């Protein structure tokens, strides 16, 4: 075997992938970085509101412990707690690192980092850069990776799409195959470790708040090659999206953190212009139902509340699937400074000024809490995740790591706002450090020669391409994708029902069968976008199946996964001390004994097989249910 330096591959150039790249390069390990397009255009740029870190600079007595507790409870206890603990502890240091990189965080009059309020918490804990925080963080790390490129440690392959992993005879990940998106050539690239940082899967739902390349295809491919996939049923609907025909555009939770209010007219079908409706005739249902947290309840709670007001009470604006997100009572200059860039988005796409007229919003698929299952090593001294362990963020395939939205580690059953930029950055950093430790500890001389595996995998991928390109089938990949999205949105959405989930699973099997007859309108090779798209559509169908089957099997309500048939409501008007509460608490604990388990799906010829793993609750044992009233 070669004695040259080990080579690593990072797939994905968003926040997670760039952090992993940076830490590998800084450890002296060369990185081949693969991305679908210039890394600066990654979906991380769309994150708006901010990134959480308990800096406690607003006189509210905020603490890291409170950040940990909020994150665990926000996720309905479903995530392993030691990694959450370490993430929250390291958040302030991560923010200061970003600051040193030159990220333009918004400032207080004293020139310090400003903080804003976000959902599911009571303290100001969210650092932000206007309302384009993800863009600014992404650019900060992008610049640092450019520094590493200059040092010769990073080599970018932009406009390449990963098609599959290359596994050696021992089942270790030894590289990838990738498609050149310009020439359509397939090549195999060897590596001693591969980090997937391939983002979310919103496109499985057709229209979501995600970018049009957030298909989850790469994670699906790893899953189909044996990587376990966890908690797939937990899909976050963002409560406040601008619903569009082409995509649903996010209106950041920051707007509510800065004082915006959600309401709908009390009278069904009230046709008056919103500003002419008197206060008394407006239904501020979040404030009424959840007085303690009001408009900044966690996202799963807010989305379900909007669902209830619109779908069950018939109170949607004009009878449609809309409610108001209103910041017209806030001073225009304050709004411009703090929220300017999201208001620009609303204005450009609707032509309406949100400072003059309340915005119209509705929940939309936004974030996948689940993802590739990843390991971690416990630090027995601290009770957190052990620094520098090669087990951290390693998937069930040795040598394959995952970070960012494509892993399922931190957010349990529901993610808190502004925790995604944190987990993407933190997990990218950890995955990079873990992959570096892994390759540096490998007995490389004992590894089987991967040459045959590399060549074989490349041929297999070329055959798939040839088959699709030469097919005369009449199924249009774009139409199939639309049908997939409609099926998932219709039957695997905010409220779930086992009969509908069975229909969804049957529908997905049909769609997969129809995919066998897919045909394209272009057969030329050069920059043919239809072929990669078609392949993504199939891989999305596989992930959709994982989501639907995982949802079908979990008969309870937890975070974003809500089955009304199994709902265990908090008794109205009852609080700790009331006998009804104690009774509720006992039932809640009993349910946890059965369902406080990580869903783990594995790919099989008959579809996913599901098993359940215990959750590490050593930091905050599940003694108190979530209660945001």
């Amino acid at each position, binding site marked *: 075997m070669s004695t040259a330096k080990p080579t690593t591959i990072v797939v994905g150039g968003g926040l997670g992938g760039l952090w992993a790249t940076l830490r590998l390069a800084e450890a002296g390990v060369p990185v081949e970085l693969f991305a679908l397009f210039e890394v600066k255009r990654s979906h991380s740029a769309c994150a708006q509101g901010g990134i959480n870190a308990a800096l406690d600079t607003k006189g509210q007595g905020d603490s890291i412990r409170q950040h940990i507790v909020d994150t665990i409870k926000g996720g309905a206890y479903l995530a392993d707690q030691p990694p959450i603990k370490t993430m929250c502890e390291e958040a302030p*240091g991560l923010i200061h690192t970003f600051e040193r*990189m030159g990220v*333009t965080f918004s400032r*207080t009059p004293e020139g310090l980092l400003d903080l804003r309020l976000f959902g599911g918490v009571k303290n100001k804990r969210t650092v932000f*850069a206007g309302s384009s925080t993800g863009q600014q963080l992404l650019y900060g790390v992008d610049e640092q990776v450019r520094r590493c490129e200059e040092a010769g440690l990073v080599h970018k392959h932009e406009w390449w799409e990963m098609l599959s992993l290359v596994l050696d005879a021992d089942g270790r990940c030894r590289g990838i195959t990738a498609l050149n998106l310009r020439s359509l050539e397939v090549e195999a690239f060897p590596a001693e470790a591969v980090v997937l940082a391939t983002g979310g899967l919103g496109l499985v739902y057709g229209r979501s708040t995600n*970018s049009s390349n957030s298909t989850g295809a790469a994670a699906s491919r790893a899953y189909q090659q044996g990587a376990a996939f966890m908690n797939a049923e937990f899909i976050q609907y963002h409560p406040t999206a601008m619903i569009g025909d082409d995509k649903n555009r996010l209106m950041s939770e920051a707007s509510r953190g800065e004082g915006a209010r959600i309401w709908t007219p009390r009278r069904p079908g009230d046709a008056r212009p919103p500003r002419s409706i008197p206060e008394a005739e407006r239904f501020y249902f979040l404030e009424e139902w959840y007085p303690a947290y009001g408009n900044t309840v966690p996202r799963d709670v807010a989305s379900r509340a909007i669902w209830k007001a619109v779908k069950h009470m018939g109170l949607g604006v004009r009878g449609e699937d809309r409610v108001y997100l209103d910041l017209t009572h806030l001073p225009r200059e304050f709004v411009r400074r703090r929220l300017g860039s999201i208001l620009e988005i609303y204005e450009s796409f609707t*032509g309406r000024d949100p400072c003059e007229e309340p915005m119209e919003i509705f929940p939309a698929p936004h974030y996948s809490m689940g993802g590739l299952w990843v390991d971690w090593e416990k630090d027995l001294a601290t009770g957190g995740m052990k620094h520098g362990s090669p087990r951290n963020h390693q998937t069930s395939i040795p040598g394959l790591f995952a970070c960012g939205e494509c892993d399922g580690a931190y957010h349990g059953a529901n993610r808190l706002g502004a925790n995604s930029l944190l987990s993407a950055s933190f997990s990218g950093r950890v995955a990079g450090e873990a992959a570096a430790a892994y390759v540096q500890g490998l007995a490389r001389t004992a590894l089987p020669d991967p040459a045959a595996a590399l060549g074989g995998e490349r041929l297999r991928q070329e055959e798939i391409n040839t088959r699709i390109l030469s097919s005369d089938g009449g199924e249009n990949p774009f139409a199939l994708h639309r049908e997939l999205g409609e099926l998932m949105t219709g039957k695997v959405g905010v409220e779930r029902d086992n009969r509908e989930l069975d229909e969804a699973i049957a529908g997905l099997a049909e769609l997969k069968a129809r995919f066998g007859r897919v045909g394209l309108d272009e057969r030329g090779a*050069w920059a043919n976008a239809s072929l990669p798209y078609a392949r993504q559509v199939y891989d999305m169908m596989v992930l959709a199946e994982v989501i639907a089957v995982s949802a079908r099997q979990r008969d309870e309500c937890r975070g974003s996964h809500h089955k009304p048939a199994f709902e265990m409501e908090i008794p109205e008007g009852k609080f700790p001390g009331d006998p009804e509460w104690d009774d509720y608490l006992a039932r809640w604990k009993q349910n946890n004994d059965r369902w406080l388990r990580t869903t783990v799906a594995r790919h099989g010829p008959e579809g996913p097989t599901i098993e359940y793993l215990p959750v590490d609750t050593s930091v905050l044992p599940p003694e108190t249910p979530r209660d945001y009233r």
Partner: protein
Amino acid sequence: MADTIHFRIRRQDGPGSAPYWQEFRIPHRVGHNVVSSLMVIRENPVTADGRRVAPVAWESNCMEEVCGSCSMRINGRARQACSALVDTLAQPIVLEPLASFPVVRDLMVDRAVMFANLHRVHAWVDLDGSWDVHTGAPRISPQEWDLNYALSRCMTCGCCMDACPHFGLDRAFLGPAPLAQVLLMNNHPTGRYARAERLHAIMGEGGLTDCSSAQNCVQVCPKKVPLTTALAALGRQTTAQLFRDIFG
């Protein structure tokens, strides 16, 4: 309002091939933008005169004007296609690739030069490493932040480069977007340690003096990045650097 949307699209099969025009009509729908229209065309790529053709190739990702992918010339003006609402455009809507970059195919161009230019101007802060050093960067006033934040919103979309009369194929000029990043990096309290290196990079051939202050860049920037203000500030910084170079 017309019941169809009429597009006239400049196509090109590959970098070396000759461009040609095709026209498409799709059903009108309120709220359509240029990208959502191209998505309709790709699903059923039939020209206005009934020929089935290969789908039009273009680039897009975020669809909310923050990633910079979907730049193209729309009715002659460089802009983001996702935020170009059809109902605000004169028809036929003419789509062309940006003219200052090599065409890859149809409306896709290769903007690699913009990223290469970020290397040329040392557009990063020299960190010792991305580990925690248990202290943040020095304070930054809200007034300084205002300008820096505006500069940092540049999404490398290339609209300003396309509008610039001095940037183009086979020309050395760095272009407005990478230049503005020099000011952003020089403004950072520790980024300024590499100020001289950055200024020297823009004082030579293809540097700041190639700009004739045509002001086209700032007019087309979708993010209202204060490009001309930045270039003027850099003019002062390079002059000062010249004196430092001469007199030490």
